[in-house]
């Protein structure tokens, strides 16, 4: 019954989305104005129905109702409860349902709270949102129904073991909220283009959604990177895998959008550019979805293979992006007029940042799509770090330099001489480290640049606080300081990992000792162990840092039985100054065990910095929402007073 209820709720939600679209579109015409009143309620109920449908799916998974095909394919009664839950969205259909649910709920919130924009723009926005939703409802109902029944099977097939990890249970929903948040920005951009109302108020209304999406995207990327790092046992944190790129591209666009939104909100400039980025950011979400969901690429992370779905998403992609770009082309000329600014100004720095981010996005996009294009032309090509690392660096490094200076500049017009003094300290710090790094005779140039930039940016990111009373610093400024400092920290972690990692690959007998970096590691024993749905060989290792206390590590080689598959579970020891990383390999004929050991100085800074970046975004969001609320309260007070005075 639950599955049928879920399907019914999904159909109803789709019907309401249709109503929302037509009522919203007609309300923009003179004759249909009366229909405008139906739009907001439709959006609210649509979101709730989608949520009901999603809850039904989760219940079906918790019950392990094997008569539902999706449950049979992705779950198993012997699975831990967390993964039964995660099974609901750890597959194509479920994640698409999660997508429309988040999108519907976001639409509900917009419909309930957003009163700043002209009503017509709001109606156009909600209609635009319904238009996007409808495509996904159609996708679910016609090609990816999560509630399809089948004859009850004796047992389910289980969840891909690589996905049975707490990090991954929460990682996809996090990214999805990010993707979908960008769909709201897209709808705002469409609404504003339709009614030609691109104003600072528009930027202020859109900004919390962009911020929210950006926070979740950041966290999702951080979580995904850490997952790849410890789950795959390869010791790397970024592989330029197409699926990783699929999440990086919307993040790059959202980062640019966030900054151009600030310019539009504060200074009423970059109007067309901001709208354009709103379109591009969501387009990148769609491109990402297409790459991951279409089955045109196989990757460690891609797990749906079905050409029909690929063409469906490609069609949606074409309609949304094509439609939005056409609308942009028709309307761009009417929204371009903005305020002027001088070459040396905050605006200029932000424009530079935007262009560099867009170029980086272009490099990643081309590198991700080119192999697919080449394959279509009958050539097998693979693109990897030798392309991505240097070519993105060409644009990222200047952007980081400007990031250090930009926040110190005034809006509209400034003199470089005014900020020059403040930059002496970060520049000295950077040059000092650069000198040190070069004297170590590094093998590669990029880690050296990173090591030198990190302290310079770290210090510069704190400079906007100089000469202010810290208590009076507004939350959005704190947010910027934290986020920029987080960038410096991440950069430091990345550079340190590439420059200083020591690695050892050995075959040892039980009882033997190995040295890697400052560590002494002894293999104590190899034991068989069992989990809820796997068995494993587990190495017991004793590690001592510079001969200190012994720390025990338990790397495993796991065998899952449903589906049958082997995975390596790495073991990690985290210290303030780095991480020890151990992987257990096979036994050789003479009874020795393969071990792979890494000492990675400061590598946790990569993810810690990422979390700081997201935290900065959170502070900014908090500050913006709080000031919006204050403004609403103040407006109500004024109208109340006016009423009392009989005006």
């Amino acid at each position: 019954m639950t599955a049928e209820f879920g399907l019914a709720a999904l159909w109803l939600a789709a019907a309401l989305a249709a109503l929302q679209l037509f009522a919203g579109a007609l309300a923009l015409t003179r004759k249909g104005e009366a229909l405008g009143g139906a739009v907001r309620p439709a959006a609210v109920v649509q979101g709730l129905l989608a949520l009901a449908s999603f809850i039904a799916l989760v219940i079906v998974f918790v019950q392990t109702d094997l008569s539902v095909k999706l449950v049979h394919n992705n779950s198993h009664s012997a699975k831990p409860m967390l993964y039964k839950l995660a099974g609901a969205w750890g597959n194509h259909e479920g994640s698409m349902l999660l997508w429309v649910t988040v999108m519907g709920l976001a639409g509900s919130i917009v419909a309930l709270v957003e009163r700043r924009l002209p009503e017509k723009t709001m109606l156009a926005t909600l209609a635009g949102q319904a238009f996007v939703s409808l495509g996904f409802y159609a996708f679910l109902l016609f090609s990816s129904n999560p509630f399809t029944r089948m004859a009850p099977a004796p047992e389910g097939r289980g969840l891909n073991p690589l996905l049975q990890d707490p990090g991954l249970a929460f990682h996809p929903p996090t990214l999805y909220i990010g993707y979908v948040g960008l769909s709201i920005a897209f709808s705002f951009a469409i609404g504003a283009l339709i009614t030609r109302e691109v104003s600072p108020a528009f930027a202020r209304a859109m900004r919390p959604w962009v911020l929210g999406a950006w926070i979740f995207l950041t966290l999702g990327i951080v979580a995904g990177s850490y997952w790849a790092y410890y789950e795959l046992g390869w010791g790397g944190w970024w592989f330029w895998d197409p699926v990783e790129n699929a999440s990086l591209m919307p993040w790059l666009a959202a980062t640019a959008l966030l900054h151009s939104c600030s310019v539009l909100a504060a200074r009423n400039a970059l109007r067309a550019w901001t709208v354009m980025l709103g379109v591009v950011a969501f387009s990148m979400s769609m491109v990402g979805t297409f790459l991951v969901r279409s089955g045109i690429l196989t990757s460690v992370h891609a797990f749906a293979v079905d050409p029909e779905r690929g063409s469906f998403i490609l069609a949606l992609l074409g309609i949304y992006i094509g439609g939005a770009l056409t609308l942009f082309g028709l309307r761009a000329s009417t929204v371009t007029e903005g305020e002027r600014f001088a070459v040396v100004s905050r605006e200029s720095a932000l424009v530079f940042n935007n262009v560099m981010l867009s170029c980086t996005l272009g490099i990643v996009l081309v590198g991700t799509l080119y192999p697919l294009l080449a394959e279509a032309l009958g050539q097998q090509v693979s693109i990897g770090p030798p392309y991505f690392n240097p070519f993105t660096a060409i644009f990222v490094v200047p952007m980081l330099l400007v990031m250090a200076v930009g926040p110190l500049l005034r809006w509209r017009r400034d003199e470089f001489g005014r900020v020059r003094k403040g930059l002496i300290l970060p520049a000295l710090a950077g040059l000092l480290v650069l000198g040190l790094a070069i004297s170590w005779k590094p093998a590669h140039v990029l880690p050296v640049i990173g090591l030198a930039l990190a302290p310079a940016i770290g210090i510069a990111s704190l400079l906007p606080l100089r000469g202010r009373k810290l208590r009076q610093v507004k939350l959005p400024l704190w947010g910027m300081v934290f986020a920029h400092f987080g960038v410096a920290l991440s950069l430091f972690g990345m550079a340190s990992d590439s420059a200083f990692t020591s690695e050892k690959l050995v075959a040892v007998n039980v009882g033997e000792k190995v040295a890697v970096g400052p560590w002494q590691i002894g293999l104590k024993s190899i034991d068989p162990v069992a989990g809820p749905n796997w068995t494993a060989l587990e190495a017991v290792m004793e590690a001592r840092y510079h001969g200190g206390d012994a720390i025990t590590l338990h790397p495993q080689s796991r065998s899952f039985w449903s589906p049958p598959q082997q995975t390596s579970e790495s073991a990690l020891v985290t210290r303030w100054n780095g991480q020890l990383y151990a992987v257990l390999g096979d036994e050789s004929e003479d009874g020795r065990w393969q071990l792979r050991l890494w000492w990675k100085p400061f590598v946790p800074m990569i993810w810690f910095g990422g979390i700081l970046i997201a935290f900065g975004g959170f502070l900014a969001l908090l500050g913006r929402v709080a000031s919006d609320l204050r403004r609403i309260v103040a407006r109500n007070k004024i109208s109340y007073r006016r009423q009392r005075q009989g005006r």
Partner: protein
Amino acid sequence: MNAALKPKHQRLVLVLLAMVALIGAALLAIWGLRSNASYFYLPADIAANRPAPDQAVRLGGMVEAGSYRREADGVTIAFVVNDTKARVPVRFKGIVPDLFKEGSGVVAEGKLGADGVFVADNLLAKHDEKYVPREMKDMTEAQARQTVEETK
């Protein structure tokens, strides 16, 4: 922008600069792809057209039955990749992927040494039915067809 510039001109200059940067990025990307694309080779391709020693290559094929052995250090393995037309010896230092075995498909990333031995720095094997390296999927199908034809 000089304050004397009219808003229209300022906008034009901005748009032009952004265009130049983006076109520059695109040209750079194309150039980078041409010089960095690592091409997929079957053993027969290597026999026909040997890649340069410093060229990054992806070599795909079947692990020849009986060719797998581990060297004395316990961590270096050697095997032969075979596509029924040609064979290439491969050396790899590291932990082999879980589903790596003789008679099954493999993609080795690395470089072809001057001695004709392919030195792999990464091996991709079939993970499970849901994850097969892209090149290998076609390869297994082609291989299956060929086997059928040969045993007719």
